[in-house]
């Protein structure tokens, strides 16, 4: 192992004047001093830069909760869903059944010129009640009122083209009765009174 002459150490540390260094060591001292100067003059190296970047990241303020939530929401994540095939078939069947059985409850799609007419009459002893008038060529049978809760009040809600109509109720297929709840009545020229319903367009 090579050892450095202690006088070189002393010369480099400034403890020994350069004139006092023996002539055979002066060249070595000069080369080492030049190398030391070169190292001292180098710009900050990669180690310093890495340290500063790490420290900057540590000092950066923490993101707000909202930002963290947004970042969580937009970050893609893998979701693993384990479903038995039998359950997926059952789910699909339930959706199909719901779609089929609730489709009728939405009611008919109304056109621009159509409206809703409601017929209500109290006929406690009746077996059947029909609304008959100019909306169905005075032909019984097309608009049947129903008494679903058996309280004697018969009802029907129908879609008709907007307009003015005359009508009567036909009870049990033979008794012609005006709608006593209708606010508009007009003589029918056959000795009775017709009720009048004005159907207004539903889409106004």
């Amino acid at each position: 192992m090579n050892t450095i002459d202690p006088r070189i150490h002393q010369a480099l540390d400034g403890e020994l004047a350069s004139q006092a260094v023996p002539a055979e060591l002066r060249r070595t001292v000069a080369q080492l001093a030049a190398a030391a100067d070169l190292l001292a003059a180098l710009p900050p190296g990669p180690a310093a830069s890495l340290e500063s970047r790490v420290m900057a990241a540590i000092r950066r303020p923490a993101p707000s909760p909202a930002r963290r939530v947004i970042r969580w929401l937009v970050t893609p994540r893998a979701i693993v869903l384990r479903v038995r095939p039998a359950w997926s078939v059952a789910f699909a069947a339930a959706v199909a059944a719901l779609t089929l059985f609730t489709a009728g409850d939405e009611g008919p799609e109304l056109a621009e010129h159509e409206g809703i007419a409601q017929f209500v009459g109290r006929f406690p002893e009746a077996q059947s009640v029909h609304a008959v008038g100019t909306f169905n060529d005075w032909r019984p049978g097309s608009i049947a009122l129903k008494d679903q809760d058996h309280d004697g009040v018969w009802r029907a809600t129908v879609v008709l083209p907007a307009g003015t109509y005359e009508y009567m109720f036909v009870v049990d297929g033979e008794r012609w009765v005006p709608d006593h709840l209708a606010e508009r009545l007009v003589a029918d020229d056959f000795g009775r009174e017709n009720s009048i319903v004005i159907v207004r367009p539903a889409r106004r």
Partner: protein
Amino acid sequence: MTRWVVLAWAAFLAVPLAAQSVRGRLEGRIPSAAIPAVDSLIQFASQEGLPTEPLIQKALEGGAKHATGPRIVAAVQVSLGQLRDARDVLVRAGDQPPVLPAEMTTVAWALRRGLPAPVVERVVAALARPPRAAAMHAVADLVAHRFDPDSAAGLIIEAVRDGVPRERLLDVSAAVLQQVQRGHTRAEALASVRRELPNLPAPSKPTRGNVAGARRPAPPTPP
């Protein structure tokens, strides 16, 4: 020239075809002995430019109510007279002939509902262009509730002049009747609604439940 010949032939053929379709609608629905008389009344109406559907409906109504043939013919004759009166009212009020069939039907309704002819003329003259059905029914609704016909017509005409849309005129009469139900006198009710014009309470629209439960009428069963 050729076009006129085609049109003349079309008219020549259309009249018997229309008559045939009218007879088709009446057959089996009214006593057969009444059909020729009813049919000829409908032909008169057609030739005079009057709407024929109200006459057909009147005959069908009579048949459905088991009226006798002569009674049905008489009722159709009365309806024909009402349509002629309606046309005359419209012409007197300023409508240029040929008068629109829908307007004749509207005015015939108004006269049947008890509106005096001068009041109808006043409304027609004030509402220069059709449709006037909502205005007529609004006035008739008020008159049916014992409002003075002139005051009722005055309110509806004022509502139109104040910018109330035609389709909302029934809401004007409804608002007045609501005031009466709340205990106001007729004069107070008219004045109160007049003050608020053109603002009106929101019209009652069919609820979601009503629409959901609504059904189109079933096709008519054969007699």
